[in-house]
């Protein structure tokens, strides 16, 4: 547990440093995730303690969004003034995103599925 938390923090730190040094507009944790993924590819396996820690951390993922969500109270004024546009944008865009990504994947899957059978 302790070792794998250290690994996660270490990769995040390396990610943040790389972003600062290279000046790329990518968040540090994403770079950390990519580096860890490459490391696992090279190693050929994910160590059991790391798997357990990741699973535990990710199983409480929705809790981690709560403090940022409570920040809604800082924006009551803006939300009060602009709420129709915001609600419309969030709901319509989320429905569209769900639909488009599902339909695109389904269509590409059918195509590549038939391609595999032909080959």
């Amino acid at each position, binding site marked *: 547990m302790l070792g794998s*938390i250290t690994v*996660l923090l270490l990769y*995040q730190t390396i*990610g943040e440093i790389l972003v600062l040094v290279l000046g790329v*507009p*990518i*968040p540090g*944790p*994403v770079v*950390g*995730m*990519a580096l860890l*993924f490459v490391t*696992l*590819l090279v190693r050929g396996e*994910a160590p059991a303690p*790391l*798997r357990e820690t*990741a699973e535990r*951390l*990710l*199983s409480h*993922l*929705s*809790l*981690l*969004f*709560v*403090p*940022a*969500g*409570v*920040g*809604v*109270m800082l924006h009551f004024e*803006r*939300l009060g003034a*602009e709420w*129709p*546009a*915001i609600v419309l*944008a*969030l709901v*319509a*865009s*989320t*429905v569209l*995103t*769900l*639909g*488009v*990504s*599902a*339909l*695109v*994947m*389904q269509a*590409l*899957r059918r195509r*590549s599925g038939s391609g595999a059978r032909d080959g």
Partner: protein
Amino acid sequence: MGDRLSDIWVYLAASPLLGLTVTLLAYQAAHWVYLRANMSPFANPVALSIALLVAILWFTDTPYATYFDGAQFVHFLLGPATVALAVPLYANLARLKRELLPIIGALVAGALTAAVSAMAIGWLAGASRATVISLAPKSVTTPIAMGLAEKLGGLPSLTAVFVVLTGIIGAVLARSVLDVLRVDDDAVRGIAIGVAAHGIGTARAFQVSATMGAFAGLAMGLSGVVTTLLLPLVVRVAQP
């Protein structure tokens, strides 16, 4: 006695302990309600905990900054949790390889739809410039979205709120939308939920099925990367 109590309150209200404890208590209360409601998507635990906490802070006249002094310890874990996404991503390597093209296609189409439609609808409906830019990264997980908002000239804390709202909306509506479209494969449903509603959608997907959860987690991680790469271009072209 009253003085003692208010002394205790003054001490506790100023310490990070209270913000952290009340966050965990509120979440567990909300989770209990969610379980009692048979995990109905409408009893979303994130939405319930936020409502509860905002009410508590409002009644006790506590500023958000004071609350966040404690809650930041929970918030901080989003960073390592994002790094940890590499693990389920790697665990699904075989599926990822087998369906690489459909997944990448869905991710690029979904990430573009999320950003472009949110900005376009917000702009057409009369939202201000700062709001429109803050809407752009709303479908990716909080640390990525806040980082992007900052780099693109939005308001990171407003983006965080939009991200959470998007996650809740996605978790609530996913089943109905995908049923209407007759998308019944768990893998496809998972990808759509992960792209549209990041971690909150993924948490919901895991409760429906392990396959759906794995694909949602995969999509959440990859769409974070895809959005990071595409969004600066989208915003530059759109120039809201």
